[in-house]
Structures are given as structure tokens and as C-alpha cells.
């Protein structure tokens, strides 16, 4: 996965480049809007990370120029400015996500992964999640390559969670997903199916219950993303 970072602050840029490299991304870095435009015009990137404040024009106008030129690369905006109009404008112009400075590396990595997955995921395609692989169109789930039998209700729950990977899904929404399959839904139908899913998939997948909100399918930590030292390998 190739990423372009557009950031003029050296300290931040250096840290982001190294952090993302450790997480397994290839990162190109430019400090100017005009260089960014040139790079995006000639080469392919899977994701662009744009700082809003740049010395030669702001990231928002760069974004606008990219989008009007037909560039569909997912864009994550980085900013130290924290105003609602900025954020609204960024999304209107076609930004895919927004991250405030200062941020934690782990959060940046997670956001990048989520954006890339969303961009590469075709409707009804296959979702890979650690040791799991889910074929949404064929309704088939593989664990370490072996098929796992799921009831249609369990599948309905899992599918909803997969569509919202890493995000909380309200219990009401899971109930709605089940409603097509069960006519007399008991209050704890969701809990029942979740616990069955957990039993079948064990530690290959974590479904986290959040009190008062619902459930969240946790993103697996990327292999090698935690503590790694690229220099030692090289």
C-alpha cells in the first residue's frame, strides 16, 4: 500500500513516515502543495494524508483541485485548526476522514487501514479480518481457510458487524437485521446470537459489548504494527 503524506512540519512528517512504515505502508512525503499535485498527477497512491496548513496554499484548496481533476484517491485530512467550518468544508470537498493534531500514531494507522479497506471493499466482496475471510456475496466464512457453518441469523448479525468494522453498532440495528429472520424476537435475541458467534469463532474475532450502546467488531492488530524496528531488519 502506497501512501502520500503532504505535511510541511518536519517533526510531524518524520514521525508519520516512520510510524506508517513500521505499520507496513510505503510512504512518500512532500512538504508543498505544488509537489503534492505533481505527485498525485503522475503516480498512483492508495491514500493521501493532507495537512490543512501548507506554506503554499492550504490543504483544502489542494483537495478541491484534486477532486475537480477527477482524482478519487481516499484523503485523510490532518489539522491543527479546529473549527467546525473547516471540518464541514473538508467533507464537502470530498475528504474521507479528518484527524486532529496532536494524534496518537496508533489512531492514525487505524484510520488509514479503515480508509483503505473501505476504498478497496467492493459491494458484496470479500472481507479479510485476521484469520477470517468473509465472502459477503456467497455468504461464506472461512477460518484459517476452513469453512465455518453459520445459521442465517448468525450470519445476519456478523454481516452487520462486518459492514461496520471497528464501529459501534446499536443493539436496535442488530435487532432490525434479525427481524427478517425471526418473527417473535425476544429481547435477548441479539445476545443469544452474539454469544453463539463468539463460541464458534473463539479468539479469531472479538465482539465487544458496550454497555448502553451495542456491539463492536474489533479490528485485529496488524502483524508487526506494535513493537518493531525496521532498522534492525535492514
Amino acid at each position: 500500500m502506497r501512501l502520500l503524506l503532504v505535511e510541511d512540519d518536519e517533526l510531524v512528517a518524520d514521525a508519520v513516515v516512520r510510524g506508517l512504515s513500521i505499520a507496513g505502508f510505503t510512504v512518500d512525503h512532500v512538504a508543498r502543495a505544488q509537489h503534492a499535485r505533481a505527485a498525485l498527477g503522475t503516480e498512483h497512491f492508495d491514500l493521501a494524508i493532507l495537512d490543512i496548513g501548507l506554506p503554499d496554499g492550504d490543504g483544502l484548496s489542494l483537495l478541491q483541485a484534486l477532486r475537480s481533476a477527477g482524482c478519487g484517491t481516499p484523503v485523510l485530512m490532518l489539522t491543527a485548526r479546529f473549527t467546525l467550518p473547516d471540518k464541514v468544508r473538508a467533507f464537502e470537498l470530498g475528504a474521507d476522514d479528518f484527524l486532529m493534531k496532536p494524534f496518537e500514531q496508533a489512531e492514525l494507522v487505524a484510520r488509514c487501514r479503515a480508509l483503505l479497506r473501505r476504498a478497496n471493499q467492493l459491494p458484496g466482496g470479500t472481507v479479510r479480518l485476521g484469520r477470517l475471510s468473509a465472502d459477503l456475496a456467497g455468504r461464506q466464512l472461512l477460518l484459517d481457510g476452513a469453512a465455518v457453518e453459520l445459521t442465517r441469523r448468525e450470519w445476519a448479525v456478523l454481516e452487520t458487524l462486518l459492514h461496520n468494522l471497528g464501529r459501534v453498532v446499536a443493539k436496535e440495528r442488530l435487532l432490525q437485521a434479525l427481524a427478517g429472520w425471526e418473527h417473535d424476537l425476544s429481547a435477548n435475541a441479539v445476545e443469544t446470537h452474539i454469544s453463539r458467534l463468539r463460541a464458534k469463532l473463539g479468539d479469531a474475532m472479538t465482539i465487544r459489548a458496550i454497555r448502553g450502546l451495542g456491539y463492536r467488531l474489533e479490528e485485529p492488530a496488524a502483524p508487526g504494527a506494535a513493537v518493531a524496528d525496521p532498522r534492525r531488519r535492514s
Partner: protein
Amino acid sequence: MTLRRRLLLLLLPSLALLLSAGALVDRWVALASTREAYDRALSGMARAAVVYLQADAGSPRLLAHSGELLRQIDVDDPTPPTAHPAVDGIAQALQQEQRYLAITGPDGALISGDASLAALTPRPPPDTALRGPADRMARGALFQDAQLHGHTVRMVSLELPSAGGPLMLSLAETLERRDRTEHVMLLGKLLVDFAELDLTLLVVWLAVYFGLLPVGRLRAQAEAHASRELRRFDESDVPAELRPVVTSFNRVLELLHDAAAAQRRFVADAAHQLRTPVAGLVAQIELLRADARTRRLQPELERVQRGAQTLAHTANQLLSLARAEPFSGMQEKFQPVALDALVKQLVERHIDRADQAGIDLGADAQPAQVYGDAWLLEDLLTNLIDNALKYASRGGRVTVRSGVEGAGHYLEVEDDGPGIPESERARVRERFYRRAGSPGMGVGLGLAIVDEIARAHGGHLSIGTGPALRGARMRVQFTLSGGA
């Protein structure tokens, strides 16, 4: 001293004094005119008798008639004249009306009538000697006050020329009648004066009251400024005398407003400027800690990282605070904000941090809505959750709620940490106040921000105790609920 009090103090006593003086003059005039009228009536009666007696001087019959006449011309007496009574009878009848008649000869001896009155009657003068300075004379009539039969009387004496030298006719009456008239008159006057005084004072009070209404309105406006918003005073309704004051006050307000805005901008800019280098610092330290070569320096690096995080946190908090300070026009940007959605969003955002701290973070989001600024409310709730996560013990519970109680919609965060003792609940809202032994990287701005944002939304932060008397319960109750 208020302006109204000052005006009333200046006006009311002097008016009361003036009106009292007027009443005194009235009294004097009333007394003098009553006396004059009664004197004239008395001398008229006497003169009528004289005229009558002169026509037929020396005839005792006529003297008797004169008594009758006196009764006839007495307007106060409705009894019809008795036909031909004896002179003594007449005198007696007169005496019953408290009037006395006496006719004396040139030598001063009693000819007819009351002897005691005769003794008081002056001698007929040789000529002008009759006009004494002490007694009032009215066309030859001599008036005097005297004591007769134990009463104070007013008497008049007239000269009655006759063949045997001048006679004197005296007519006296007690003061009873004129006193009664005087009383009635004085009482009437007094009542009128009193009513006049009351009415005048009332009119003055009303005039002062209504005249000072614009000042009262100005004061009400000033009190409405209590929200710390530096809004201008409305100049349209202000009286001309006060307008310069209000205008210059408005100018000062504008300056103050500009200064406050500049300060807010400065803090916000400074915080913004700090963020990028701090972001670099935090990220670099994070990488350094992950680097295997620094394994032996972990404790030191952890401290450095904590410091950098505190720096980042402080920059964010300063920005929040600058944003939360009320400014004019802030409320115009308010929109309905769903509190339950906010609770869900922020609980989700804090789940990972709660996990790291081993805290069970949960939501109880009941529908609620306020009229406000979504970002400020997000800041408010973020600070409350941060605070709760900081104080809750490992393995503890933090619950974030929204809902409606009575007319107020509220946000609430409850933890099961040590709680905040009653004595510190006021102080924790102060900026940069940190409780002794506070954990985490706070700088003591969290609750100050919450308090500020709550007030900007017409809300109130109340600090209570969690269930089972443990932990802290922070609730912000709003009054500006967005229209459903």
C-alpha cells in the same frame, strides 16, 4: 442613594412646607373675615336700632319696639317677633340668645336694658375722643371685647343723639356663634388643604416615578448583561440627559469586547500554533519508545511522553476554553443538538481509552435535546468523560447519561471513584485548580471549561455523589431546550 430617592427627598419636604404655610395664611384670612362679618352684622343691628330710636326719641314704647326690631333683623334667629313685649322681657329674650342691649344717658346712667353692659359702655364723647386707637371704629361705631356675666363678649357702642344730650346704645353678643362658624370654616379649610397636600405629594411621586422609568429600564438592561456577554445598551429609549453616558458606556463596552475578542483569538492562535510541534513531539516520542534500542530508557521516556501529552492536552484545553467564552452573537449560531446522539458518539470515542484503564464505560442515552453549539457541547461532555475516566478506579464503572428531568434536559457522567468532597465542589470549577493528588495529565481546566460552556448554554453544572454515596456525579442541566 437612588436618583428617585434624591428627587423625592428634595421635592416632598419643601412642598409640604409650602403647603403648610399656605394653610396658615388661609387660617388667618378665614379668622379675619369671619370676625369682620360678625362685627358688621352686630353694628348693623345696633345701627338699625339707633335709626329707629332716633325717629321717635324718648318714647319707651319705641324702645320696646327697638327690641323687637333687633330680633327681626337678626338673621340667625328664626323665631317670629313677639307682639309688644315689655322692655325687660325683650332684654330677657335677648339674653337667651346671648345678646345684651343697654342704653345709657349722657351721664352714663342706665336708661334701659342690661345694667352690667351699661357699666361697660363708654361715655358719649365730647367729640372725636370716641375714636381710640385700641378699638376698631366703623362709621362711628366703637367695638370692643369685654367680660360680661362671666362670658367674653364682643360689644358695639353707638352714639344716639337726643334732646337731652347724646345717649349711648350698646349691643353685646357672646363669641359662641362666631366661634362655631370659625370652627366650621377652619375645619373645612384644613380638610381642603390636607387633601391638596396629599394630592400634590401623590402627583409629585407619580411624576418622579414615571419620569425615571427609562433609568429603570437601563438598569434592567445592565442586569441582563450578567451573562458576561459584552452586549451594547439600547440607546433608542434613553432620555437625552442620559444618552451621552450610555453612548460612552457603549464605546467602552465595544473596546472591552474587542479586547476580549483579541485575547480569545490570541489564546486560540497560540494553542493552534502549539499543536503542530506538539504533535511532532508526541509522535516522535511514541516512535522512540517503540524502538528496541531505547529499552533501558523506558521509564525516562515514559515520563517524557507523559509531559508531551500534558502539553498537548493543555493546548487543547486552552483552545476549548477560548472557544467557550461567551461572545456577542454566540447564541445566534445555536441549533438544536441531540444529547443522546452526542452521548453515544462520545462514549464510542472513549471506549478504547476506558479499556486501557480497565474501566467499564457505558451509556444510558435517553432522548434529550438542547439549543446550542454542537462543538462546545462535545467539548463539555468530553471533559466530563475525561474527568470521570481519570478518577474512576481500575475495574470501576463510568456511565454517561442524557435525559429529561422536569423541564430541563441534561447530560450526566457518573463514576465510582473517590468523589469530590462538598468543601471542594465550588473550587474545582476554577481555572487551573487541581485537587491535591489528582492523577493524570490534567492542568485543572476541565471543569472550568464544562462550567463555562454550561453557562453559555443557560445551563448549570451540579456536582453530586454517585449511587451508594460513592464516586462523583456531574450533571449539566440545561434550560434552553431546542424546539422538539
